[in-house]
């Protein structure tokens, strides 16, 4: 087989050098496109009002102040943060439990009514009655103004369920049959055989659910009436948009809005590095078919 880079070991051809340089330049440009706005957000959030009001963009810090972050922390951030954590952890746990169990069931070849069940589930991705019927169902279940309204109705995402089902379907049946022969129950197979093998997809779907529940805004506004139960997204959006009212005299500068953006990103940014390796492999593994 002819090597592309023919020559002594360590020799790099001119073409390869050009490619490496072009590649590096391209990736540098792409990373700048991502990093510069992020830098602008961070620097603006730390800039005093006078600087932000005068400049269109602030990339180089001209004075640093933490006033906006202090204001966020003192604005009820911690109680809203705790509400968000509670809802996210509980909702993600419930969602994962139900998704794993249902994904396992749907992955069984001999499941009665499997085709109908799959079509029924997929139909929910396409058909959506809208917010009013959704509200009426939640109301008639007596869940209004309760965190259960944020957990139960949105417990299973069809997309994540299909990912889980596909991944479990890709597990060799010989492993499962061997466990059955050894006398393992179905629950035992699920928790002792399937789950340990499915760590990548579980990590990925956990992240999807966690981010989705963390960012949930409209459901909180629609289903929760008591403002002491509002989550972080609602509190921070209100602080940012106070100045948007036609008659409000609240101040309108961007530095506070940028500080809010940073504070909402931080929890997800902290979580992501721990499950990054599972996230990327999990996405692809879930799509493999038998």
């Amino acid at each position: 087989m002819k090597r592309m880079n023919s020559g002594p070991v360590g020799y790099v051809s001119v073409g390869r050098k050009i490619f490496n340089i072009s590649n590096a330049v391209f990736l540098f440009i792409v990373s700048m496109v991502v990093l510069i706005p992020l830098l602008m957000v961070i620097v603006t959030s730390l800039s005093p009002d006078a600087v932000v009001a005068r400049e269109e963009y602030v990339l180089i810090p001209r004075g640093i102040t933490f006033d906006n972050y202090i204001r966020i922390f003192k604005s009820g951030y911690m109680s809203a943060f705790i509400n968000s954590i509670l809802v996210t952890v509980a909702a993600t746990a419930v969602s994962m439990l139900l998704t794993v169990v249902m994904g396992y069931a749907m992955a069984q070849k001999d499941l009665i009514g499997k085709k109908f069940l799959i079509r029924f589930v997929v139909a929910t991705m396409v058909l959506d009655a809208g917010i009013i019927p959704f509200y009426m169902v939640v109301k008639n279940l007596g869940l209004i103004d309760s965190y259960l309204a944020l957990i139960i109705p949105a417990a299973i995402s069809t997309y994540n369920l299909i990912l889980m089902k596909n991944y479990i379907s890709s597990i060799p049946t010989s492993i499962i049959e061997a466990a059955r022969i050894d006398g393992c129950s179905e629950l035992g197979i699920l928790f002792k055989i399937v789950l340990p093998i499915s760590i990548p997809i579980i990590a990925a779907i956990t992240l999807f659910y966690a981010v989705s529940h963390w960012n949930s805004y409209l459901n909180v506004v629609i289903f929760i009436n008591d403002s002491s139960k509002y989550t972080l997204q609602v509190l921070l959006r209100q602080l940012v948009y106070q100045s948007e009212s036609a008659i409000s005299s609240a101040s309108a500068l961007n530095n506070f809005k940028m500080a809010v953006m940073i504070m909402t990103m931080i929890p997800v940014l902290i979580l992501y590095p721990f499950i990054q390796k599972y996230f990327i492999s999990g996405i692809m593994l879930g799509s493999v078919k038998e």
Partner: protein
Amino acid sequence: MIKGKKICTLLLCSVMSVSLLGGCKNDKQVSKDPNNTGSEERVKLTFCMSQTGWGGEAVDPELMKEVERIIEEKTNTDLTIIAPPQSSYNDKLNTLLTSDIPDIFAVRKAMDTLQVMAARGYTRSMDDLIKTAPEITSLVDPKYLDYLTVDGKLHAVPMYVPLSKVIWLRKDVMDECGVNLSQTPTTEEFYNEMKKMVGKGVIPFTFPKFLDNLPFFFNPFGAYYGIGVDENGKFYDGFNTPEAKEALSYVAKLYAEGIWDQEFITNENAIIREKLFSGKAASTLDYFNRYIYYINESEKVNAGTEFVPVYELVGPRGDRGNLNEAIQDVLCISSKTKHPEKAMEVIKYYFYTMEGVKLRCLGVEGKHFTIEDGRIKATEKAANSGYKSDVNSFLLYYPKIDNYGFKWDETTERLLPKQMEYVEEANKHLGSKYLVPGGKSALYDKNLSAYKKKIDEISSKIILGTTTVEKGYEEYEKFWKSIKGDEMLEQLNK
């Protein structure tokens, strides 16, 4: 064994499905009999209003509870406050109205939406209640109560005084560029003077993306931005008139020549204000009570200057008038409430008494603010939750406060007389505002939203120059035919 497990699984799934479907039943039960109006029991009411309406715009739940407590004490009620964030207020209200109509609720843009809400049966007539409300009838001009009638019956009361907008200009930029504008210039004078600021590193005139602010520039040409009423009392399409085309051509000229903010189509209200007080823009259109606000905000960012108003433009044929928003936000009582009198009592207390207005604008002493050396100071908790103690907010309400019980800061005390002068003068230059009754034309009720979107769309295209006036109106006329506009006017004029 396996077969048995399969059957069990199937039964379990069936039970889950049935229980989920069971949740879809109509809830006809009355959960409790809550409104025993024995002398010692408080009447339970739900009150829906945006989160910033409970004491100086503070959004802290505990501070809101303090305001709730005071209202309950004063009106002998047990309130459940539903305070959604401002940006999602309409979504929340529209959802609640489908099933759990709050006893009292605020409606925004009432001139457009109240008629539809009443037609759908969400609101209760207040004719009987208003007779026992001298606090309201003594303060509100009957003309404005007429705006809130549906089929001859009053369905809401105003939350604020009639609002209007004027142009606010920075004096420093005017002086620097040699701009000399009167307070009621002609359209020609406005164009010529504002042109002096083009290319001077400042936006001569910034404008919000909300095109329902265009009436300020329609009124001088004798045009009306929407369905108007002619001199014979007949409804007509104000947007499709030679005068409206002339107005749009004028605005398009301002845009094309760099007088009008080139990025106006993305401007939120907060952005136009920031541009003006920071000095990036020389002028903008904003409410009549913004004088002290702009002085203060410009000082904070080291861009202090005097601000002067332009109350209206005068057109080529002498037509004039500022942007008259009339009644924007109103308070309604639910058609399903069991205690309309108590609901009215809450409204009267919180919006039409001096004590209630102070509570709404300032909050509770000791919780939202303290008085130190005779001057008001926000508590730390309030300050960090968006609290504002602002004399401008008092100007929005009907009861006029003669004694606040404290002094404002020195700047406010110094500027207040001038602010009041501007407010009074602005009210002398009100532009036209017409009410189209709901429930009279099914086509109008059905197409109102699409109509408003279309006139905004055509206006923005003409202003931005992406289409000419002729082509824009060709497209508009096709739309008018598609919604059977002529038939709609016939129904309105019956």
